[in-house]
């Protein structure tokens, strides 16, 4: 049962344009969401997160939007740069009351390619 889904395996964007990566989840108990970026031969690195009490979190060129009713989140990168080319994973967890419950569940990843 794939509780976190990234339905687009790849995305190609021109440098300077906006990249939008999407993620859907099915478990309504998830209340904390993260995006990770992974370069080849490296471990994933944390990018940005959002709690379910918010619908938007912004950090520089990266913004994550959360639509709880649709169980959907998206990562916007603007402007996109060639160095952003990597695999992007969304992840979700139940993180209520100051304690994390259970494992962090990842989506399958989306390969982003930003062309110069």
């Amino acid at each position, binding site marked *: 049962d794939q509780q976190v889904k*990234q339905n687009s395996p790849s995305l190609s964007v021109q440098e300077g344009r906006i990249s939008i990566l999407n993620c859907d989840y099915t478990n309504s108990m998830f209340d*904390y969401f*993260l995006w*990770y970026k992974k370069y080849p*031969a*490296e*471990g*994933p*690195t*944390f990018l940005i*997160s959002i709690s379910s009490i918010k619908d938007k979190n912004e950090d520089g060129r990266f913004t994550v939007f959360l639509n709880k009713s649709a169980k959907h989140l998206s990562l916007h990168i603007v402007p996109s740069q060639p160095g952003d080319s990597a695999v992007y*994973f969304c*992840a979700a*967890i139940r*993180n209520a009351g*100051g*304690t*994390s419950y*259970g*494992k*962090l*569940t*990842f*989506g*399958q*990843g989306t390969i982003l390619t930003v062309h110069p």
Partner: protein
Amino acid sequence: GAGVSQSPSNKVTEKGKDVELRCDPISGHTALYWYRQRLGQGLEFLIYFQGNSAPDKSGLPSDRFSAERTGESVSTLTIQRTQQEDSAVYLCASSFSVLSGANVLTFGAGSRLTVL
């Protein structure tokens, strides 16, 4: 150390042999995860340790796979009688018991296992 350390970084073994992969988490992190990424695939959850609680082993693909963790420190993932389909990058990650913008899951660089 400052990060999550995994060893070996690369392991080539023959089918049928046993392998042991090691993970040194960040000091103070109570949660430890093992994931794997097979070629062209997403992050596949294997096992999760949280403090003194019973580990969540729901992701282990077969009884050939096992993992141990000593207290809140080192973990070893053991694969017995390796098969070619076990070839993957095995990723370890650790975190505090609660995830927030300041405390997130930190990954090691992974152990690349090749079974001939």
